[in-house]
């Protein structure tokens, strides 16, 4: 990033905590970690507007792990909830009923079920209206809170409770993961970024950069989900890092529609290294290896990086297609 940043190394991660220790999320939850890091950049004056999902349980009456405001809305309309808060703050300040010191950053926090599916329309509306807000989607690639059913974010080849591998369809989910980054970019969101908790400095810089932009600031955080994906919670960060290193989760940003990859792997690790570490992909390897499905995944990753590299002028060594 060309602009000045206060985040150069992980040592620059602010020590301020707005999320108290101990909350009701699962061990190793990538979502709550994203909230914690995000908040560190935003500072104390925040209203979180939540849609139904895993994070909803984090604020269970009478407790809240947050030092900031929280509004749970509904599954489909958290961005509209952010609209109401933002507009109310603006109109009350304009009328002199509220001092400027009460101004806040308004942040939507939802899972991928809300962001990609049921709340898609509400986000599109907020982008269209150029609402000045942040949207943090913790993307664990399925309906995690209800026990891991397929969403539009579920990747090709993943098992889920509603796309179980069967004799007729041994590969599980046959849809490709929807490209929400590109959809939001096409809707003219001034800032869209992907995040991974494993790449803290990149994460911090992007939230910081969002703060310099007026309008919708859209973030998709790759949120490892030990219970849904089937891995040891201690490996969350390792798995997110592998997703970046295999090229499965590209770290990038779009400023006024211009895309730039912020972390470019020199040579991609084979996707197998990522897939074999999760139970949701186990059926691609046992009892028989689904070579074609694995090849499809690898080819799609290789092709993604070839196209991105050609556009932006970098070269990424593709992983071997077996």
């Amino acid at each position, binding site marked *: 990033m060309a602009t000045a940043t206060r985040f150069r190394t992980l040592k620059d991660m602010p020590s301020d905590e707005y999320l108290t220790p101990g909350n009701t999320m699962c061990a190793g939850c990538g979502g709550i970690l994203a909230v914690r890091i995000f908040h560190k950049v935003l500072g104390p004056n925040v209203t979180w507007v939540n849609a139904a999902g895993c994070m909803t349980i984090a604020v*269970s*009456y009478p407790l*809240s792990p*947050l030092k900031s405001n929280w509004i749970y809305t509904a599954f489909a309309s958290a961005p*509209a*909830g952010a609209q*109401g808060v933002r*507009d*109310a703050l603006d109109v009350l300040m304009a009328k002199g009923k509220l001092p400027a*010191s009460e101004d806040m950053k308004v942040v939507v926090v939802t899972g991928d079920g809300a962001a990609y599916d049921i709340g898609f329309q509400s986000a599109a509306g907020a982008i269209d209206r150029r609402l000045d807000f942040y949207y943090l989607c913790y993307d664990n690639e399925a309906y995690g809170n209800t026990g891991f059913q397929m969403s539009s974010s579920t990747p090709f080849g993943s098992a889920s409770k509603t796309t179980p591998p069967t004799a007729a369809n041994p590969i599980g989910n046959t849809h490709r993961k929807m490209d929400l980054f590109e959809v939001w970019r096409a809707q003219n969101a001034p800032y869209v970024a992907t995040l991974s908790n494993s790449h803290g400095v990149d994460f911090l810089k992007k939230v910081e950069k969002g703060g310099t932009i007026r309008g919708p600031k859209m973030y998709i955080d790759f949120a490892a989900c030990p219970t849904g994906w089937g891995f040891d919670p201690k490996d969350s960060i390792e798995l997110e890092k592998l997703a970046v290193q295999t090229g499965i989760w590209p770290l990038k940003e779009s400023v006024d529609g211009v895309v730039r990859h912020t972390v470019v792997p020199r040579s991609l690790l084979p996707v197998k290294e990522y897939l074999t570490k999760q139970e949701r992909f186990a059926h691609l390897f046992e009892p028989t290896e689904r070579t074609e499905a694995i090849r499809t995944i690898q080819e799609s990753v290789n092709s993604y990086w070839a196209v991105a590299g050609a556009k932006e002028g970098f070269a990424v060594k593709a992983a071997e297609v077996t």
Partner: protein
Amino acid sequence: MKGTLLTGNAAAASAARLARVDYVPAYPITPQTEIIETIADWVREGTMDAKFVQLESEHSMMTAAGTASLTGARVFTATSSQGLLYAMEMLYNVSGWRAPMVLVNVSRGLAAPIVLEPDHNDVLAARDSGFVQLHSETCQEVADLVLLAYRVAEDRRVMLPALVNLDGFYLSFTRERVVLPEQKEVDKFLPAYDPPHPVRATKAVAKGSAVMEGFVYSYFRYNMHAAALRAKKAFSEAARDYRELFGRDYGPVEGYRLDDAEYVLVMSNSFTTLGRQAVNRMRERGVPAGLLKLRMVRPFPSEELAALLRGRKAAAVFDQNLSPGSGGILFPEVAASMYHVKGRPETLLPVVGGLGGKQLTSDEMTSIFEEMIAVRRGEKAPEPMFLMRSEELAKAKKAVALAEGEP
């Protein structure tokens, strides 16, 4: 007579402006659209000091309305019919948040089949949502009830959202003489909203937290019920102030020629005017007829209703709505209000009519009284009436035949 000619929609918009609302999230739907267009114009030309924003659905509109109210703004919005149903999930959230915004519903029948004119299946679908509900008969009442609704909703004993209903077409697009109160008088009646626990940077709050235990949930739900019941007292006090300032008197129910009435028609909304005419016609025939109008539907004015119905020979409940498989929606509520009342009317007649705005002739309206009398005389069983004229039935059957391709 003072006043200006205003449609029901214009009366609703005017009252929102007089209430000095801060925020109007909106979404168009017939027959409500004129309300938000009017407000959009006023905000644009600077004659209304509010923020107006058009959302992408009624569901989002109600969400924004609720969270803005939680942030301390005075909020107004309006919808109709399918829009109210589309927003329904959020009605329950907004009341659960105890966000005292005011929603105007312009009644319109529900699809399918799609229709434009009114009945009350839309507004009564919101019956159990926790909104205070006030229903209007005239355009004057629309304006007055919107102002009263803010007082009741924002009353610390209540802190619930309120809904004011008016009938599409019959009120929404009909010009009637309306006396709008003076702004400075309204300011006396309705001071600025002072939210008890708003979303604030300096004092963080959590709204709509998950509740994992049934007993805590029950506690909050019972609380809402108690608050809704207190809305009756809050309404009476607000109505007293309103009468003193503006001279118009509103109770939760209103009687018409009830003094010596033996046969009473219970109804609500704009068709009440037709009910009044029917009462007059029956009186001309020497029948002691009367009418009881429900203005407040939530909280349900059981005691007021029972007090006015006891001692009558018969009552009929006119429902401009239909719960298929049960009948009119308000009938069982009226019946339940009378159950333990000594001297309750021996005959309680369920009547359904006016669905999708079906017009009612004065003969149809008087037939309700004739039916009550026939039942009282033992000539008929108290069976539900479904109003439709024979020529209407013939026309409907002709339309069906045409649709089926018969020559």
